[in-house]
């Protein structure tokens, strides 16, 4: 049984906005796919290979790089990817 009936909430009391995911494309043919390198070592090696593979599937590839892997991608970069790409693949780590 508690001795303190009322306590104050230490959290931000926010509720995450819920948005529906985009539908998964049935084919990459003709789509623009962004490849985001977060600037971890050898991320470019991984994404070079991914570019080869999905290029063969008919996708148009656009490459992007975060300034540093230690911080979230800048808003402008996220906006550019969101408005110019149909899908994005992110190379997370070495």
């Amino acid at each position: 049984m508690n001795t303190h009936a009322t306590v104050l909430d230490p959290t931000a009391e926010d509720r995450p906005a819920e948005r529906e995911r985009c539908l998964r494309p049935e084919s990459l043919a003709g789509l623009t796919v962004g490849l985001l390198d977060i600037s971890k070592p050898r991320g470019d090696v991984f994404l070079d290979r991914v570019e080869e593979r999905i290029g063969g599937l008919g996708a148009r590839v656009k490459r992007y790089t975060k300034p540093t892997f230690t911080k979230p991608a800048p808003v402008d970069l996220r906006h550019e990817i969101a408005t110019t790409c149909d899908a994005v693949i992110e190379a997370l780590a070495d």
Partner: protein
Amino acid sequence: MNLATLEDDHEAMFDRGWTDGLPVVPPTEARVARMLEGTSRDAHDVVCLIPPNLAECTVEKVAVNAVLAGCRPEYLPVVLASVEAVCSDEFNMHGVLATTMSVGPILIVNGPLASQIGMNSGINVLGHGNRANSSIGRAVQLVVRNMGGGAPGGVDRATLGHMGKQGFCFAEDEAGSPWTSLAEERGFGPDLSAVTAFCGEGPRLVVDQRSRSPESLTRMLADALLGAVSPRMVMGLDAMLVISPEHMSRYRDAGWNRTRFTEEISALLMVETDGIVFGAGGIEEGIPEGLAGITVPKFRPGGLLVVHAGGPAGLFSAVIGGWLNGPAGSEPVTREVIP
């Protein structure tokens, strides 16, 4: 928030995810109101945005978490300044949380307020047992967890972590030091109180019970610092050196000031890259072979933070390795503590 009559109030805090794994003090309205008496700031003032969720955090929300952590009201100004420092762009709390390296914010308090609120700068200074040291560091971590959403297993991805992530805060022993303080080095006058946030791993002891001269002790400390985080990492990370009183006596007796010490140890903190390139010594880790054949400093200019603290007996100091430094990582940040 009303708790059900049959809820155990301590268990209710755990159930709601508000704790760091240890019991917390229930933040009743009366306790939070009392906590807010510790600052001249308005309860509704926005302190900053708390990463990673960038939640707007008021003085009152900091006070609620300070109650949870076990703070006394007079600690609140230090908690507020610490939250501001840790949540600055330069400190990069989001990255500090998200990295798999085992680092967290370490808070060093300077100035008259440290002793006024009973902070420990002496025996067991980097350990437990002092309410102000323990609860201030804890409150900052609880703000990040509860307000910012930075909980282990979520955005906090540390492979190992360290016990200092429960809260790591201590005061510099200024009264016993012949040197200028860390905050003075960082541009704050001796009459001001300030807190410096440094992103670091757990402390590692440096034992030197034989050196009687400052030259010998400096060589020993440099040897230990060369291994900070990894002997194969240079320039890209900072470190903190906590010099104990008995070790400091070597410098005091010889008349070395902070400037002299910095010059002498910097000359020793040089690394020949031939020994740390990929594959050198049969170790695959290292720096690219193209950098062989040169000598580089272990730390960038100003990348070694030096603090005086610890108990009066014991010929030990401590090295605290940092994380990635500079704009791409975490910069040490100092903020004035406003009562």
